[in-house]
């Protein structure tokens, strides 16, 4: 009986993780794509040098940070991957969403400052793991930061 109950609970958690997880992902991707288009006129680039022909009147550090958690389904898939090896594809969309969301948040901050461009953009990714007895809560933080530059008009 115990075996049956735990089998059913695993199945329910997987189903929940998969259905809710993919729905949330779909909604988030739609929102990310929409906002990426809105912020298209504010470039975030990895150049470190300032343009020679323009006068800079303001420069400030801007950051965007996102913390994301795994769902049960993704974690289960990754757990299987830990046994046989290979790319953990189930985490790819998660990290992709987090990186793009982090850039969007950084751009949002820069826009508030009236910046024209964000230079020297960098990423940091960190795993935040809370291990409580056997229950593992796996999550990541993705931080995007750069220098928001405002040119004289």
């Amino acid at each position: 009986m115990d075996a049956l109950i735990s089998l059913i609970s695993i199945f329910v958690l997987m189903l929940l993780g998969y259905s809710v997880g993919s729905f949330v992902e779909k909604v988030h991707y739609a929102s990310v794509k929409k906002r990426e288009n809105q912020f298209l006129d504010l470039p975030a680039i990895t150049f470190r040098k300032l343009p020679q022909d323009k006068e800079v009147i303001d420069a400030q550090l801007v950051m965007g940070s996102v913390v994301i958690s795994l769902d049960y389904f993704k974690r289960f898939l990754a757990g299987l991957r830990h046994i046989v090896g290979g790319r953990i594809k189930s985490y790819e969309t998660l990290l992709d969403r987090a990186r793009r969301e982090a850039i969007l948040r950084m751009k949002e901050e820069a826009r508030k400052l009236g910046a024209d461009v964000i230079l020297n953009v960098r990423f940091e990714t960190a795993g935040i793991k809370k291990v409580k007895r056997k229950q593992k809560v796996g999550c990541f933080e993705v931080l995007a930061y750069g220098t928001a530059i405002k040119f004289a008009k």
Partner: protein
Amino acid sequence: MKYIPRLPKENVNVSQTSPLKELFFLLAAILGILLLIYIVLGILVNVLIARAPAKIEKVLEVSLSKPFLIKEQTPTEQKVQQLLDSLVKFMPAEEQRKYTVHIIPKQEANALALPGGHIIIFSGLLKEVKSENELAMILAHELGHFVHKDHLRQLGRNLILILLLSIILGPDNSIVEAFQPMIMTAEYKFSRNQETRADEFALELLYKKYGHVGGAFDFFQKMEKKRNLPKFLRYFSTHPFPQERIKILEEIAQKKGYPIKKVIPLHLEISKAVMNRQK
């Protein structure tokens, strides 16, 4: 150079395969490997158990049957012990050794065979029992497990599998937890064959002692009446289903020409002492 803001046309950082497909293939591969390990282990354990020295059972006895070793036998237990001893006399000479009865207060109608010749009977089972022959059948069934070394086999497989899994995956891997029920289910299935073999042994022993097999089916018939589980749950059951059991046993009794005669009613003392113990 002019900067033209644009978004990448496609996302190279995300694989376009379906996660459900991935799950299916990974599960199939890993379950396949596990099944292979399980079959190999099963063969290995069978070979090893057949050659296991008595010392191994002694070690297992100390670690597993320990809670039952110190206790003095209650009058009930002594009564059941007498019946058990009289049964042991009819066992093959090489299997005759010390078997000890222990009764634990538990509602469930069940009995276990533990290393070191310890037979654990749940008091719930004694409540159901109405005749000596019926109880003898249950005891003989557990003796059958000892003769076939099922008590070691079961432990051997479980121990090796859990050991193996935790070595491969690490002790606190969520996959171990996920697979554990599946392994245990397979383990149950495996044990059903053992139960049938033990039943066969018990029937023969019962015939040797009483000259007939009356009362052998009584307990299973009671179980059948009690049980109304849905069909899909049958797979998860440790013992073969009572109805199947009775059918198999009746077939054997018919084939070997075992007669069915009147049963000996059980002495009241047992039932009384059980009640006292439960309080």
